[in-house]
């Protein structure tokens, strides 16, 4: 597997001044054994520095607001708020880290929601040992790597959105970032922000409201 895109000119999402400094990581997993295992695995890599390993999205946000983080490594299913909620929150920080979500279920639905949550990578738990470090390095370098969304599933998800949401979703799937999408569709930053939360809520499956 290779990093998909590594734009040489644009600034990576990290804010490191020294390219040789270790990548600063934040680990979020609500299961103690997995959290400890991840921490040890990642601490064993010379170019990684685990800033903190915490058990909830809220605790993770507290750390991320205080300490500079390059890559957040987040379990999708946390006890309370999930990994995608955290991804959206992290991306609103002044210096947003790259976000890598790992999950037992890495199907197309998660990939679609991850696009909206602006996550940078999804890793299946089955590949968490071998590929995780590689994926973290890719994400730290600014590459985005999400699983493909089966066309039929994408279609079925798209049908559940209204026109404007479909446009936002389509542009995000096509790889535009949120600022570009807002500019293209003439949405204010606040309007775009609420649109994205609504979209995430819809994709994560709150049923449509009853018919009038």
């Amino acid at each position, binding site marked *: 597997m290779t990093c998909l895109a590594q734009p040489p000119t644009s600034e990576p999402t990290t804010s490191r001044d020294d390219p040789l400094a270790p990548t600063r990581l934040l680990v979020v997993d609500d299961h103690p*054994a997995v959290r400890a295992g991840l921490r040890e695995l990642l601490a064993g890599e010379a170019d990684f520095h685990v800033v903190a390993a915490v058990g909830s999205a809220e605790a993770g946000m507290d750390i991320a607001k205080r300490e500079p983080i390059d890559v957040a490594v987040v379990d999708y299913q946390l006890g309370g708020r999930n990994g995608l909620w955290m991804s959206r929150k992290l991306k609103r920080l002044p210096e947003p880290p790259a976000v890598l979500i790992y999950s037992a*279920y890495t199907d197309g639905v998660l990939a679609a929601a991850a696009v909206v949550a602006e996550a940078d990578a999804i890793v299946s738990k*089955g590949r968490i040992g071998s590929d995780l470090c590689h994926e973290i390095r890719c994400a730290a370098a600014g590459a985005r790597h999400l699983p493909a969304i089966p066309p039929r599933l994408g279609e079925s*998800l798209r049908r559940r959105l209204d026109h404007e949401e479909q446009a936002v979703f389509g542009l995000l799937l096509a790889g535009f970032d949120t600022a570009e999408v807002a500019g293209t569709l003439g949405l204010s930053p606040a309007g775009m922000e609420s649109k994205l939360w609504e979209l995430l809520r819809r994709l994560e*499956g709150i049923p449509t409201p009853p018919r009038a």
Partner: protein
Amino acid sequence: MSQPRYVPLLYRVAAINAVLLATAVTLTVALLAPGKVSALAVDEEILVVLGAVALVVIANVYLLRRVVGPVQALTAFARQVDYSTLGQRIPDAEPTSEAGELALTFNQMLERLQAERRESTGRVLRAQEAERLRIAQELHDQVGQELTAVLLGLSRLSAQAPIGLEENVLAVQDVVRDSLEDVRRIAIELRPEALDDLGLPSALAVLADRFAQQLDLEIDEDLPLSLPRLASEVELVVYRVAQEALTNVARHSASSRAVLMLQCDLDRLLLVVRDDGLGLAPGHSPGTGMRGMRERAALIGAQLEIDNRPSGSGCEVRLEVPLEAEP
């Protein structure tokens, strides 16, 4: 059906009546009319009396048959009634006779039996779903997480393992990875997470996608844009019926194509799963899967039809759920 080992009511009453009539006639003739009957005409007179008695007996049997008929019809109906089929009732049960009252009471009993049966089936199915949910969560939250931790530990081991051992560690890692995948698959089958998370149409899309990938089934989906809010019990029944029907297509139909359709009108929801395979063998007996589908359908008052397609190739499962108007 075996012949009854008793003399039917009709004949017993008819026999009693005939004996009474004959006795009454004999006594009347012997006690009230001695000497009034001419000695010469006795043969003709006996014939006339016997003929009259016979006529009355036949008329008696005919009238009795009309009285007893409804009871026999009731017996025949009670023998063949299917307790799992909703809405079966004795027709024209009116409280205008004892037989009518009996039929009415029987209908009420049938209603009560079916309600009780529906309730107990519902309890069993709800308990089963709750148990599945619990096992799926346990698998995911415990076994899955622990296997993930093992996988992480093995990753570190493989980096530190002395030469020669590294390959063994990698092999063990593969086994753990496969187990993790199995746990994930079993958890999904036990409990359609997508249903809670995504709602019925998308959950069905995910289901179809999984069948397409794992069982090499090509599925034409026709799913609605959106659905009104349905009771979670209804959604679960529709999902399970679709799952079972698609499983049957993959296992038994020898077809590699299926149609999965969901339609929603104002007052009903229609699920159709259709294939173009072998169809049901004539005189097939329903397996546990089909019975399960029927029980689930009955639980939400839905009609389930499983039939060969009129065109002659393949089988069609139709589930029609009546929807109540928005309150």
